């Protein structure tokens, strides 16, 4: 028995391939959009994972340090370190700002970490080249997404740093690449103003008669010095001993230290539920619409393709082809088109996803779901078309 579907495809291979390509690109776009959505959520999750922390200690009544700004004294870590259940603590600062290299600048989240041993909370967990920060000033580790390379001189606020290491997937919840610099430099960057402001402030202080008393030499200098000290950090990250209940330790710190403490779960809620909620809903809605539209277009294409064969279907019916055979021919073509389209779509999505500015997460299970959806759409659409085709009176083939 001749494979009618096969012969038809062979005869019209150009149209078939082009249709498959069109379908494929549409599917690829839909898969990519799904990946964009997942990437957004993953950015938020990865931020929490990479911090290596079990608890986040921040300013009271804030949702910090990511969703809201938080300032706590930089000696807070000492008291937190003494709390029961705490294995290691690190002070950190987070500042989203433009980082300049030469004439271009990049939006990055500048993270201030203590350049002690790698493995402290807040430090990048793994590198893709270079080394960790070893000097206490003017070195930086940047994420690959920033475009910086080893040896680059980058400027953050007032100072210049040399990039000594590169990381991957160290991004803020908004997808901005992270740049790690020593904590003291980061404190200065965040809490110390630029040169012009500092000069103005000095002038203002000097013109304040209660601060600039002639009878008290040295008073003005002391006041100005105190204004330029950086006493704050944004958060203290806490790693707990194995087996310790995070909520218990968190409650302890909250009660005795008058600070807010968030566990990993609570941070997840804050990030997903508050910080990226609107953006992810935005993308989510668009994704739903895209899926519906793509499904409709797939259905439309298959339907139209089938209807174009009405005459052949009528003749086949007339010369005695079983309905089953005709249905099988159409279905084979539709499913074949679906499979072809899906393969093209998945391949395209995989190849162009890395070029997106933010992370696109294409998961295997999304591919499987997508594949099932495509096949279902093809089958449904072709069945609708077949019904139309089979209703055709073979007598049509015989002239009016």
């Amino acid at each position, binding site marked *: 028995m001749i494979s009618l579907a096969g012969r038809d495809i062979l*005869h*019209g291979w150009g149209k078939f391939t082009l249709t498959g390509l069109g379908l494929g690109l549409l599917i690829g776009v839909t898969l990519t959009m799904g990946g964009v959505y997942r990437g957004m959520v993953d950015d938020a999750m990865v931020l929490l994972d990479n911090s290596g922390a079990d608890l986040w200690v921040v300013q009271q009544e804030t949702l910090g340090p990511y969703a809201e700004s938080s300032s706590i004294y930089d000696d807070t870590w000492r008291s937190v370190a003494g709390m029961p259940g705490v294995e290691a603590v690190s002070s950190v600062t987070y500042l989203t700002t433009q980082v300049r290299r030469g004439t271009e600048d990049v939006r990055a989240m500048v993270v201030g970490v203590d350049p002690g041993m790698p493995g402290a909370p807040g430090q990048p967990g793994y590198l893709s080249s270079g080394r960790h920060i070893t000097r206490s000033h003017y070195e930086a580790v940047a994420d690959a997404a920033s475009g910086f390379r080893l040896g680059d001189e980058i400027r953050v606020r007032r100072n210049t740093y040399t990039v000594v290491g590169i990381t991957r997937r160290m991004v803020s919840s908004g997808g901005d690449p992270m740049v790690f610099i020593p904590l003291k430099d980061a404190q200065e960057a965040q809490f110390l103003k630029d040169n012009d402001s500092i000069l103005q402030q000095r002038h203002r202080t000097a013109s304040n008669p209660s601060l600039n008393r002639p009878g008290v030499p040295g008073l003005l200098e002391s006041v100005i010095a105190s204004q330029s000290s950086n006493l704050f950090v944004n958060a203290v990250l806490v790693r707990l001993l194995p087996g310790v209940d995070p909520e218990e330790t968190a409650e302890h710190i909250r009660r005795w230290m008058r600070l807010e403490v968030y566990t990993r779960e609570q941070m997840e809620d804050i990030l997903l539920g508050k910080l990226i909620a609107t953006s992810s809903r935005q993308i989510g809605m668009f994704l739903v619409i895209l899926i519906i539209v793509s499904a409709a277009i797939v259905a439309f294409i298959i339907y139209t393709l089938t209807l174009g064969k009405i005459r052949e279907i009528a003749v086949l019916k*007339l010369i005695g082809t079983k309905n089953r055979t005709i249905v099988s021919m159409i279905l084979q073509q539709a499913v074949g088109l679906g499979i072809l389209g899906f393969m093209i779509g998945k391949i395209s999505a995989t190849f162009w996803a890395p070029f997106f500015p933010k992370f696109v997460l294409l998961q295997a299970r999304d591919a499987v779901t997508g594949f099932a959806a495509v096949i279902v759409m093809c089958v449904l659409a072709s069945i609708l078309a077949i019904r139309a085709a089979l209703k055709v009176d*073979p007598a049509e083939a*015989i*002239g009016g």
Partner: protein
Amino acid sequence: MADQQKPGITIEGLRKRYGSGETAVDALKGVDMAVSPGEVVGLIGPSGSGKSTLLKCLGAVIEPTSGRMTLGDEAIYDGKWKIKDLRALRRDRIGFIFQAPYLIPFLDVTDNVALIPMLAGSSDGDSRKRAMELLKALDVAHRASAMPSQLSGGEQQRVAIARALANRPPVILADEPTAPLDSERALSVITILNAMAKQYETAIIVVTHDEKIIPTFRRIYHIRDGRTEETAGEGRAVDKKQNIQQEEETA
């Protein structure tokens, strides 16, 4: 009047009513027809006369309202269909030739013809062998592996004829088979039909109003207003040069 040694196809009192009540239309009002195996008869009538309807009934494509249809020895309709599988009936026992060849565009010439026996269950090899025989007989075997779009109109029509004959059906219904053809081709088709009818003992009914071929029929059914009338045709033979010879009947 007609040779009726073995009835090929017979129709008695066939009626077909479309619609019901006030708006009913009687397309066929009692048609009688009989064609013997090996015979080629013409069916002539103006449009609206019901000839399409008659053809559709003969082809078991639509169901008549009343009457009797017999194919060979078997009654296939007498008030209702007596055959369950009409599709099989069409496939195995009725051949169709249309105004246009209606070849399957994505099958080559051989497979267009071989498809019919394949659908009936023959093996691929046997089907293709039979197809080649028919194509040879119709003098179009040199195009056996071409695609329909590469053939001329006449060649396509001959392939269509081969297809109609593929399952050796006892009846062939031809609907204006020569309409798009010039006189030489038209006569050639009629010649072939006659030859095939004799060779395979097929009864062939040709619906036509083509003046060029009407003289070749020995018997003609005229249909008007849903009724048929049998007349004698001129029965002229066609010579080698595809010209109609003078009738050789004795006066």
